[in-house]
């Protein structure tokens, strides 16, 4: 069972739909006991960093995520969910994140249009099971104005080019994060969702 962490952030039903299509049992909830029993967690979300952390805190979800990471359960952060994995976010002032990964989240510094909206292709830097079947140059759908800057560059699995190097996929042990929206990235997105589902099945 995959738990989609519900912390009141935006349209997360599409993540559920994508998991259903992949044939993976899932539940969208903020219930601590249910999330503890899940074999893998997805932290989705769009919106602002600070508000996202506040909502996680309000629902008491921070220890649940930390426990999951320690237990070795696969965790996937999507977009804002990826950002929140880091130590600090600089959206509407500096605020603390989950600190599961070292680094900070900053506004994109590019001469191109912001938000970075649309399909961009991945440059795969390091191998990871989350990208099984995905090739260098495959396109995914991005929508964001901020990006993660990991301290440890070796956790960067893939980047994309938007006038600057955008961190697109990170992975450290059982923790995965994607800047793009796999649930909106057509066939390539489904492959990634399947990969995460397989990692969860393997762990459970």
């Amino acid at each position, binding site marked *: 069972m995959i738990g989609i962490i519900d912390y009141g952030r935006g*349209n997360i*039903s599409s993540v559920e739909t994508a998991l259903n299509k992949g044939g993976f049992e899932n539940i969208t909830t903020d219930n601590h006991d249910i999330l503890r029993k899940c074999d893998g967690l997805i932290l989705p979300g769009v919106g602002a960093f600070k508000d996202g952390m506040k909502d996680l805190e309000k629902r008491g979800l921070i220890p649940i995520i930390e426990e999951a990471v320690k237990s070795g359960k696969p965790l996937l952060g999507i977009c804002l969910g990826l950002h929140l994995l880091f130590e600090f976010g600089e959206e509407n002032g500096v605020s603390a994140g989950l600190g599961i990964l070292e680094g900070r989240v900053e506004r994109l510094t590019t001469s191109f*249009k912001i*938000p970075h909206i*649309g399909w961009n*292709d991945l440059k795969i830097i390091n191998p990871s099971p989350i990208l099984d079947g995905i090739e260098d140059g495959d396109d995914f*759908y991005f929508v964001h104005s901020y990006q993660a800057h990991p301290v440890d560059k070796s956790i960067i699995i893939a980047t994309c080019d938007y006038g600057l190097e955008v961190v697109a996929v990170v992975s450290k042990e059982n923790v995965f994060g994607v800047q793009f*929206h796999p649930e*909106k990235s057509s066939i390539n997105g489904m492959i990634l969702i399947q990969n995460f589902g397989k990692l969860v099945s393997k762990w459970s």
Partner: protein
Amino acid sequence: MLKKRIIPCLDVRDGRVVKGINFVDIKDAGDPVELAKFYDQEGADELIFLDITASHEKRDTMIEVVKQTAKQVFIPFTVGGGIKSIDDMRNILRAGADKVSINTPAILNKKLITEGAKIFGSQCIVVAIDAKKNENGNYEAYINGGRVNTGLEVISWAKEVEACGAGEILLTSMDCDGTKDGYDLELTRLVSEAVSIPVIASGGVGNLEHLYEGLVEGKAQAALAASIFHYGTYSIREGKQYLIDKGVDIRW
């Protein structure tokens, strides 16, 4: 690199697609969900539904269309038409749309952009601008489906829209719409250069060269088209191949 986007737009009235469409592979050509699925498979980068339902009572049919589309289509889609309040936005987004597009209500009440962006995120809020050139050669923004001239100068309105927190601008040339003579490239370029948010060009596409012009000369980030795809004049794939051959970065 970021790819330029090709976006088919579907006009929906009372839950049915309005413009005559006839594809062999589609069982029910009037069903917006079937058509959305078809365009997804064809390689469309996004979709826009424009709800032109006249009566308020039948608006709920659009919510059902959005729900069904979200279940079956795995590319982003926007819904425009009839969205007047934060509650309307919430209903459409909750039903599974990725973005909402607003025009008249945005001009009448700018707070709707600001509030919408604050609550749902800028990336959800597309502001549609219907532009028409006046006698002095300036562009003015129209509302109420092009019936009312607000007298607002388009470039400054576009900048204001950006400042209010909109994530994208859907720019339609009323002069070109329906002509099949191509986008208003001057208008598109002026707006695209004036704002730092993405601009979707709309109105006037009659052939594939027009898509190229809008994206390259007009500097738009995305090209919207309706009839050339709906009537099967060109497929999305043909359009994309044409653009790739001309060196435009396009997702295949």
